[in-house]
């Protein structure tokens, strides 16, 4: 995994700090910025693989280094549409709950065996009457026990400051209070530990702070959906 930091555009208060010089300088800047009153800035992240291609579905997180992350749990939705989970990656704040409406005209059987949240929604159509509470941080892998190729991830975060990278590899965390942050990234196909992606940055009262990562990815092995000669698939 490589990471790099870009300079902030004109008007940005702080562009981010080099790791070795970071702590003291960032702390000083953040203190000065905070003294001017808490305002919100934007973190712009760019994620690419080691071939330079944009990486989508990466979760970018910003954890405040000073004070608590704050935020309130929310109620979220992960759909099942055309025998796929939508979205593929869903970050939520710890304590949030997720509903799993089934938009298909057939039944799904959603489950997780991940330590952060093992659960099962046995064979159902429509929308389950109760949502699933995710009360422990961590990555929860979802599956459907009927359609084995269906897979999705819930990233249960300890901070409300997160975003998912889009097709172009960009992610945007808006309304980020000024201060120092440990930013990191997670992706289902990432080959390195999430902790090794941490970068410390300081953001100002407004403007944009940019950060980027280069990730080495390994494809996830899972059952195919496409038909194969001589095989019955899930039938």
């Amino acid at each position: 995994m490589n990471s790099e930091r870009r300079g902030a555009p004109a008007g940005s208060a702080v562009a981010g700090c080099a790791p070795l010089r970071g702590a003291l300088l960032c702390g000083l800047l953040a203190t000065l910025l905070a003294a001017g009153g808490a305002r919100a800035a934007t973190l712009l992240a760019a994620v690419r693989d080691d071939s330079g291609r944009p990486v989508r579905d990466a979760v970018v997180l910003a954890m405040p280094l000073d004070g608590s992350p704050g935020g309130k749990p929310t109620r979220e939705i992960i759909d099942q549409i055309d025998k796929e989970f939508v979205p593929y990656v869903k970050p939520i704040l710890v304590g949030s709950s997720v509903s799993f409406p089934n938009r298909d005209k057939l039944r799904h059987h959603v489950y997780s065996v991940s330590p952060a949240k093992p659960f099962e929604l046995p064979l159902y159509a429509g929308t389950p009457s109760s949502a699933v509470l995710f009360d422990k941080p961590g990555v929860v892998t979802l599956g459907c026990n009927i359609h084995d190729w269906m897979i999705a991830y819930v990233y249960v975060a300890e901070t409300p400051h997160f975003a998912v990278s889009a097709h172009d590899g960009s992610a945007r965390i808006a309304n980020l209070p000024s201060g120092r942050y440990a930013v990191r990234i997670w992706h289902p196909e990432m080959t390195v530990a999430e902790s090794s992606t941490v970068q410390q940055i300081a953001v100002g009262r407004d403007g944009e702070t940019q950060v980027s990562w280069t990730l080495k990815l390994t494809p996830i092995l899972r059952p195919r959906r496409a038909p194969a000669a001589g095989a019955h698939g899930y039938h």
Partner: protein
Amino acid sequence: MASGAARAEWIADAGTGVVYDSNVSLAQSRSDIKHDALVFAEASGGQFVQLTDRLSGTLTGRVRKELYSRYTGLSNLSAGLSAAARWKFGLGAGAPWARLGGSATRLDYRNNLRSGWLYETALSTGIRAFDRWELDAGYRREHRSADQDMSLDPDISAAVFSQHASSEWLGARFELTQSLYPFVRYTRRSGDITATTQPNLPIYQVSSAVAFDPVFGTGAIAYKLHATTHIFAAGLTQAVGAHASINLSIERRISHGDSDINYYGTAYEAQLLYEF
């Protein structure tokens, strides 16, 4: 509002491909061996229903058309119905499964000698293992009932295409990349086979049925005998998106019949599959 009521799901697929077979006559001597190529198209559709968390059922109909290039009497249209139940022993993609299925298929050949019904039952099991492997094994029984019994001799049957056989197989598919899957399969089939030869007394004597077979020329004789056939297959599946795949395979057949009558053949197949 969640519902646990069973809901049937329409399933359908279609495929087309070409096959080259080095020994369509299933002959022993070089002069009797005939090779040919065929194109085929097939489609199936039906209903899949997940009955419980673990048990599902399938009812499908299938049609297939085969057109041979040289030996046009082999061209055929088949249509059949199949039913299957599948049980999954646990939660997740790695849980083993077992499948019990049966089918009845009508076979209509341009050469009527081969026309009839094919009935099959199969019990199979499989598992996804070691992250990248899909393994399966199974047992199949087949019974083919020919329409015609035009006897050459009152003492010997002419129902050469009425056959009984059973097969066991082992298969493995490897996930080389997210879309490319090499596979291998070994099948051992034991039972009746039907081959073609020019009039040949020793073969006539070990056959359980004999009939003229005009598909391979005037005077050609089709005969039935018991044989054990070893089928070694290998191939590649290339997924094309989520609903389609290209499949290439090679199959080597080695048959050991009664009285040391042996047959060898190789088939090459390219197939495009689409699942709706």
